[in-house]
């Protein structure tokens, strides 16, 4: 008899799954028994949240669907933060959860939780499988929904008796999925594309605002060709970093709350804003009424619900970013005269570079700059959330898409370390570095056990300021330096790493930074670097909450 669990494993293999991040438990025993001698590799994490983040990191680094597995009740609930993180950033993962037997559903059985109910707001779709005969179809649909259209997480909940039950054999699995309620639009409307081209042909100060959708759509080459052909400067969101090389002359860097001066000034002055795979998030726009106040707006996105959600749009184009950019390029006959504008924003770049006090103190920005200089774009950089994330976004020069992995929408502390584990399995050929704060790292520090067990060569760079730094920064700037519960006592991270069998090094002098980074990168296995940085360093530029994005603090004023 072919069981549901066996059927599940075969269905996963058909989807090309090579790695699952998971944690066993009672009701997933039948699935784990099938995994025991399966060709699918299973990575045992130390907490289910890490399984979800690792699947997410795997997906971001590879562009394929990441998979995690947890038992019912607490196991499934522990996945939720990871699923929500993937949902906010449109990352394709399939989360498999065990469930109590169907006869006990709704009975408050041991380790029962209504995980499809709980995850409804944070999944693209989810399934509670009621009999083993549905497994083939559900798994196929789950992967299809996760990776197509606007990608996102899908959860499949499998009661124990479904895993042990008999699946019908010999029923062919359909080659394609067709869902009458789900038919994404990939090609942009030709009339809208021509309207956009008319605006592009006449604009004097156009600006591209590119987001994570460019990376998800694998459209970096098309975007580069588009901005070069049309001679349009580009700014990217946090999620869009790497979509255009950081050192490209037309690239103004990141915009928004911690955006560069040149990017934020360009948004405020442009007469045409071309939003590509971006969603006018509040961290990008600041005060929405004063965002791009002089600009006509073209918005390209695969999700029609994002268009017009936060900002009125002049030319909406619903479609896959890559397909729409190809159409724009093939139909473009005339470009605007943007020479003066390009020169002007270029001069802002030299006039208002990023700035920190580069003295003899060990400052976090310096650590990131040195790492950037050593790797030269040839590595995958994962971050935690907070100051570490913003310094990395600003001071690391990303050269390629999918080399920057961060929790943008949800802002999940503790995301980076497990996501780095996932990224390693997606791209074992690349060095993977998690840039962390001492606060974030301690949120999933137990994964030292995982990297030790499997000798996963993830390097953790802790910018240790013994504070919850970003919250402290806000307290300094907006709450009279009343550091309410943001100070963390010193932790000997090297000793903790060593206790797990992981190498580590503490760095206290600026002069030792480069050597330490090289030592870690040259080590075969995992490595923890504890940089004791200036404690009250701030992330600048900064747009205070509710201000217009050209009203930055911590910068040289024009």
């Amino acid at each position, binding site marked *: 008899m072919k069981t549901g669990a066996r059927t599940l494993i075969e269905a996963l293999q058909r989807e090309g799954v090579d790695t699952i991040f998971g944690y066993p438990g009672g009701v997933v025993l039948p699935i784990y028994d099938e995994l025991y001698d399966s060709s699918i590799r299973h990575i045992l994490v130390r907490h289910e949240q890490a399984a979800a983040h690792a699947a997410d990191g795997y997906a971001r680094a590879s562009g394929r669907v990441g998979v995690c597995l947890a038992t019912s009740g607490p196991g499934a609930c522990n996945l939720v933060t990871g699923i929500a993180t993937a949902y906010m950033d449109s990352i394709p993962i399939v989360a498999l959860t065990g469930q109590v037997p169907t006869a006990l559903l709704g009975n408050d059985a041991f380790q029962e939780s209504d995980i499809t109910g709980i995850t*409804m707001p944070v999944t693209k779709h989810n399934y*509670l499988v009621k009999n083993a005969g549905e497994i083939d179809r559900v798994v196929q649909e789950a992967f299809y929904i996760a990776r197509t259209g606007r990608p996102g997480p899908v959860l499949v909940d499998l009661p124990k008796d479904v895993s042990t039950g008999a699946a019908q054999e010999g029923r062919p699995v359909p080659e394609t999925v067709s*869902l009458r*309620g789900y038919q994404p639009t990939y090609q942009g409307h030709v009339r809208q594309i021509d309207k956009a081209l008319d605006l592009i042909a006449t604009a004097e100060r156009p600006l591209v605002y590119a987001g994570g959708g460019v990376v998800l759509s694998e459209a970096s080459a098309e975007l580069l060709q588009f901005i070069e052909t049309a001679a349009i400067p580009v700014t990217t969101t946090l999620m869009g970093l790497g979509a255009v090389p950081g050192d490209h002359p037309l690239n103004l860097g990141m915009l928004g709350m911690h955006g560069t001066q040149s990017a934020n000034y360009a948004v405020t002055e442009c007469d045409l804003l071309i939003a590509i795979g971006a969603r006018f998030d509040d961290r990008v726009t600041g005060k929405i009424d004063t965002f791009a106040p002089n600009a006509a707006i073209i918005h390209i996105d695969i999700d029609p619900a994002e268009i*017009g959600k936060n900002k009125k749009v002049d030319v909406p184009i619903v479609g896959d970013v890559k397909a729409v950019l190809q159409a724009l390029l093939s139909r473009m006959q005339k470009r605007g005269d943007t020479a003066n504008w390009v020169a002007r924003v270029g001069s802002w770049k030299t006039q208002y570079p990023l700035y920190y006090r580069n003295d003899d103190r060990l400052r976090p920005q310096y650590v990131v700059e040195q790492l950037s200089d050593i790797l030269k774009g040839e590595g995958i950089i994962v971050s935690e959330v907070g100051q570490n994330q913003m310094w990395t976004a600003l001071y690391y020069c990303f050269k390629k898409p999918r080399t920057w992995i961060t929790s943008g929408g949800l802002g999940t502390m503790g995301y980076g370390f497990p996501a780095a584990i996932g990224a390693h399995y997606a791209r074992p050929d690349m060095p993977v570095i998690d840039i962390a704060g001492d606060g974030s790292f301690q949120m999933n520090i137990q994964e030292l056990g995982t990297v030790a067990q499997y000798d996963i060569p993830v390097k953790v760079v802790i910018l240790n300021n013994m504070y919850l730094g970003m919250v402290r920064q806000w307290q300094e700037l907006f709450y009279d330096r009343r550091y309410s519960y943001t100070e963390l006592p010193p932790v000997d991270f090297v000793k903790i790493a060593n206790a797990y069998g992981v190498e580590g090094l503490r760095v206290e002098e600026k002069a030792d930074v480069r050597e330490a980074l090289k030592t870690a990168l040259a080590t075969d296995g995992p490595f923890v670097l504890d940089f004791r940085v200036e404690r009250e360093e701030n992330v600048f530029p900064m747009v205070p909450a509710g201000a217009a994005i050209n009203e930055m603090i911590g910068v040289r004023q024009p």
Partner: protein
Amino acid sequence: MKSHTLSVLVENRAGVLSRVAGMFSRRGFNIESLAVGPCEEPNMSRITIVVNGDDGVVEQVMKQTNKLIDVIKVSDLTKRESVERELALIKVAAEGGPARAEILQIADIFRAQVVDVGSKTLVLQVTGDTEKIDALEKLLRQYGIKELVRTGKIALLRGAKTVKSSK
């Protein structure tokens, strides 16, 4: 702010109603009424939702509803010619002779039916658009409404046009 009547064609599956209703509440959309039941297609249901909001809000409501995998089609009937009906059951106090006679007279004018007669109460069944039911309720309030239940609005396009899965 204006009421919009949305006709939502969905897969007839467990949990669909909670997906739709949950999405409305977490995005802060106001539901005035919601009615759900089977429709002409065996595997589908039709949900009629009345929402309140300006055009931008209603556009978001429709787009977000459409994003749900189990939702097949969403139409705003407000912008088109449609028939809209609601049904109410009203249990009204009718103890004295004169009151009872008056209530029966009002019922007659509204073409409401008496579906239950007790010694102290009458139960009226009325169908119509929302305004008609509101008007009847207002008139009956003087006699004492003991209980009232409304189905929520349901609606169909007039003429040969239909709200169908285009896929």
